[in-house]
């Protein structure tokens, strides 16, 4: 029973191989032998999350949301620092909304620092108000 199923299958494959050359090849996908290019990346984002006294706030949820849709979400570390790898270079950093949140806190202020060069990481700092 099992054997007959397998033989039918093998026979159909043998017949099929004749067709391969008739199918025009399409190009698709790279081989992951380690190539990874950041040529098309926009700047990355980083910043400090602090409370009203200037003390670091760890574990705050930091969201970076381009206007075009989608978002990247990360958390601030023990020093209140967060890092976000960044988006495609077509996405203007000015259109990326950065927001911070943590239970027990309200978002008081978001400050975007200037970039000396458009390729430099964008610094956006958050102040959270304890509630």
């Amino acid at each position, binding site marked *: 029973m*099992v054997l007959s*199923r*397998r033989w*039918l*299958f093998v026979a*159909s*494959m043998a*017949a*099929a*191989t004749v*067709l*391969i050359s*008739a*199918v*025009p*090849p*399409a*190009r*698709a*996908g*790279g*081989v*992951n*032998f*380690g*190539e*990874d*290019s*950041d*040529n*098309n*990346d*926009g700047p990355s984002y980083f910043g400090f999350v602090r409370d009203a006294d200037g003390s670091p706030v760890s*574990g705050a*949820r930091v969201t970076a949301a*381009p206007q*075009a*849709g*989608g*978002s*990247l*979400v*990360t*958390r601030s570390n023990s020093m209140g620092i967060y890092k*976000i*790898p*960044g*988006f*495609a*270079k077509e*996405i203007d950093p000015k259109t990326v909304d950065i927001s911070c949140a943590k239970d027990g806190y309200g978002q008081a202020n978001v400050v975007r620092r200037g970039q000396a060069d458009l390729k430099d990481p964008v610094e956006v700092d958050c102040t959270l108000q304890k509630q």
Partner: protein
Amino acid sequence: MLTGSVTSAAEGAMEGVLVTAQRDDSPISTTVVSDASGRFRFPDGRLRSGHYRLRIRATGYELDGPQVVDLGTSTTNVAIKLRQTSDLAAQLTNAEWFMSMPGTAEQKRPLIECMSCHTFERIVRSTYDADTFVPLLKRMAQYANNTTQARVQSRVAARDVNDDSVRKLAAYLATVNLSRAPTGSPTTHSPTWNYKLQTLPRPKGRATRVVITEYDMPEKTIAPHDVRIVRDGQNGDGYVWYSDFVENFLGRLEPESGAIVEYPIPVSKPAFPTGTLDLEADADGNLWLALMFQTGLARFDTKSKTFKIFPLPADLNDDAMQQSMVMPGSANVDGKVWTNDVVRQSIMRLDLKTGSYERIDPFAFLGKGHIHAPYGMAADKANNLYFMDFGGEAVGRVDAKTGETTLFPTPTEKSRPRRTMLDDEGRLWFTEFAADKLAMFDIKAETFKEWDVPTPHTYPYDVFRDKNGELWSGGMASDRVLRFDPQSGKGIEYLLPRPTNIRRVFVDNSTNPVTFWAGNNHGAEILRLEPLD
């Protein structure tokens, strides 16, 4: 019943030697491991009367004798003698080759692509120089993912290969093989490499308290990839079901007899590679398969034993199309099944009512030039999707209602998250394949935890959290099953009897202790591992 001892001239009584017995006419092998005093004992009732062949696994050694044993109704005691092997290289796992080969992490990294299909033994025994390796690597890059040594399948749509990367890899490989070794030849049993062969330690203590059962497939070409038991109120037949990575069959194993039944999946693109990868169950106990290069999804009714195919529309069904994953777990909520498009690195969603597919690109806002690959999938109770970016370093979420995507980068960069499971407490357990880590993502708190696996170069593929909170994992490189306690951060590793390329792992929580299952897609077998404590 069979008991005995293992000794060698070099070590005397030996702990951690795997002793395997297989009856001549049976597809089932049973393995136990010698304890600290060199004693082993097969569990009562496991070995019926008959003529058995014996095998051992202990790196550095081979079986001197006895090679066979006749078992009757009373207890048989055998004194197994080992001798040192003259061909250590034949026994090394890929993890041990990674440890042994000189070179930087950067130079070795591309080799994790090679081990999808074969061990490094064939690389290191070769005498090719860099120029000879280049066309060889380019040829292999055109093989389908679902290729094994027993059955090579070529892609129809050619893949782009970066010439620079290939030349770099070729140059490196020519430094670790026998192309410039001072002595020896690959045809003798003692070729010499210009570096020392490093080995991992044998199992000790608790890692010896285990019984391993291997089920040989009736054909060498059968490549069990995902293995799972369907056993619950909805559809409990207790059979072990598996996807076959290279042939278009869904398979079923009957664990008592080792009997296999294969259900042929219709072949819709005869000129294209066959075989499937992900095997998932829906809420009604139907099994789902993503049809890889055959494209589309298949639903198998385990009662009527019939397939329903959900084909792709012609405009999506081009020569490059490949679908590896399917997630029907919460399709009963909104009538939608998640899947992926490997080539265009996007998520797709099937509407069961209309049979139409929609595409969601979760990486649309990221810079082109990085490799992304939606891979392991899980769905929560509202059918929101959680997926692993196997190309990169994020866990992704797609909202079932809005289609909105959120990416959560893992704490470790370039971690390449692979397969995942969602537990009842809303935690995703997953592996970070390239980072050699097990990881957890709490979907409510949106926080990560990561744990290093004990053995570097394990490359864990999948993880399963059992009813006791322990994690079970395994990888393509080390031939070891990892049992890990995330509370203490400690794990034990069970060595497997044969070279095993572990992919999807499954734990049967209905036994005490739990039972671990996995396929060996390179070795045409299904593995059952029963810890004794």
